[in-house]
C-alpha cells in the first residue's frame, strides 16, 4: 500500500504553528522562572527552614514526584472547580507546571545545597552575615551553579510535558497539532511537524539555558 505524506497541507497552517510555539515557549518561560523559585524556597525550608514546615514540603515533593503530570493538571482544572476554584485552561496549565517543576527543582537544588563545604558557611558566619544573608549570598549561588545542568534538563522535561496542556484546550503547540489535523485530516503529518518543532525547541532551550548558566555563573566548568 502506497503511503503518501502531504506536509504542505500542514505547513500551510504556519500561523497556527507559530502561535503554538509562542504559547509553549511562553508557558515554559513563566513556569520555569516561578517553578525554580518555588524549588529554591522549598530547598531552603528542607535544609534550614523552620522545622514544622519541613514535613509539609517533603510531602509536597513526594506527592508531585510520584504522580503523573496529566493527573495533576486534571485535578487542578477539573477537580478544583468542585472546591470553588475555577481556573482558565491557561492558568491551570501554568499553575500545574509551576507546582510540578517546583517539586523536582526542590530536590535538585537541595542536592546542590548539601554539597556546600562547611567552611563556606562558617566563613559567612564569621563575617557576621545573618543566616538568611549567608543562604542567599554564600550558599545558594554555588549550589545553583553545581546543579544547573540538572535544572536545565528538568525545565526541558516540563516543557515537553506541557504537550498535555492541549488536552484541556490550552492553545500550546500540541493543541495546534490537534487543530490542524482536525481541519485537514492529515494526523500523521501534523504530529510529525509538531514533534520536529518540539525537538527544535528542546535543543534550542538547552543551548540557551546553558549559555545563560555560563553567563550567570561565570567560571562554571561546563553549563
Amino acid at each position: 500500500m502506497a503511503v503518501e505524506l502531504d506536509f504542505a497541507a500542514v505547513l500551510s497552517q504556519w500561523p497556527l504553528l507559530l502561535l503554538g510555539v509562542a504559547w509553549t515557549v511562553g508557558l515554559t518561560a513563566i513556569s520555569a522562572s516561578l517553578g525554580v523559585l518555588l524549588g529554591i524556597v522549598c530547598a531552603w525550608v528542607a535544609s534550614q527552614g523552620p522545622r514544622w514546615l519541613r514535613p509539609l514540603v517533603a510531602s509536597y515533593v513526594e506527592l508531585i514526584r510520584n504522580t503523573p503530570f496529566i493527573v495533576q493538571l486534571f485535578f487542578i482544572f477539573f477537580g478544583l472547580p468542585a472546591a470553588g476554584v475555577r481556573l482558565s485552561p491557561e492558568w491551570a496549565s501554568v499553575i500545574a507546571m509551576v507546582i510540578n517543576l517546583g517539586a523536582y527543582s526542590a530536590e535538585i537544588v537541595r542536592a546542590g545545597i548539601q554539597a556546600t563545604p562547611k567552611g563556606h558557611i562558617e566563613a559567612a558566619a564569621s563575617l557576621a552575615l545573618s543566616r538568611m544573608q549567608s543562604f542567599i549570598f554564600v550558599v545558594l549561588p554555588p549550589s545553583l551553579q553545581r546543579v544547573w545542568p540538572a535544572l536545565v534538563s528538568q525545565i526541558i522535561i516540563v516543557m515537553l510535558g506541557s504537550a498535555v496542556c492541549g488536552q484541556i484546550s490550552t492553545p500550546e503547540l500540541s493543541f495546534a497539532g490537534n487543530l490542524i489535523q482536525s481541519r485537514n485530516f492529515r494526523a500523521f503529518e501534523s504530529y510529525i511537524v509538531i514533534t520536529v518543532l518540539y525537538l527544535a525547541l528542546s535543543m534550542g532551550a538547552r543551548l540557551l539555558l546553558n549559555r545563560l548558566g555560563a553567563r550567570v555563573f561565570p567560571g562554571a566548568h561546563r553549563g
Partner: protein
Amino acid sequence: MVEFTLWDILRNLLFAARWTVLLSLIAFVGGSLVGLLLLIARLSTHQLLGRAVAAYVQLFQGTPLLMQLFLAYFGMAMLGAQTSVWTAATLALTLYSSAFLTEIWHGCVLSISRGQWEAGQALALGFIEQLRHIILPQAGRIAVAPTVGFLVQVVKGTALTSVIGFVELTKAGTMITNATFKPFVVYSSVALLYFLICYPISAYARSLERKLDAR
C-alpha cells in the same frame, strides 16, 4: 439518579489500575531488552552505529511522550496495520523506555575505568566477552538504582496513553468523573493510587542508592 459511593469509585479505579501496572511492566521489560541491544550497539567500535543510537536517544528525550504516542497510533494506522491502542501504547512506551534506559546504562558503563576494558583485551577476550564478564557486572551494580527510579517515570508515562484512548487509571478516572460528576474525589483518588504504586518504587530506588553510596 444512581448514587456513587466512594467505594464504587475506588473499586472501579483499582480495577483499571491493573492495566496501568501491566502496561508499565511490558514497557519496562520491552524497553530493557531494546535498551540493552542499543547499549551494545553504542559501545561497539562501529562509529556510525554509536552515533545512530545517540541520535535515537536524543530524538526520544527531546520530544514529548504524548507526540510519540500519537505518532505510533496514527503512523501504524497509516501503514495499514490493524491499530489497537494496546499496540500503539506498548510500541511507543517500549521505544521511549529503551532510549532512556540505554542512556542511563551508557553513563554507568562510562563510569567504569578504561583499564577494565584493557585488562579484558589483555586476556584476549572479545568485545562481547569483555562486556559480559568484566564491564556489565560492575556497571550493573551502579545501574540498579537509577533503573528502578526510571520505572517510576514509566508508570507515570502510562498515564498519557489515556489520551489515545487506552483505558488505564487516568482514563478510567475521566470516565468515572463523567458518570459521577465528582471530579475532585475521583482525581484525588486517581492521584492517590498512582502515589501508592510509585512511592514504594521511589523509596526502594533511594534505599538502593544509599546502599551504593555507603559502599
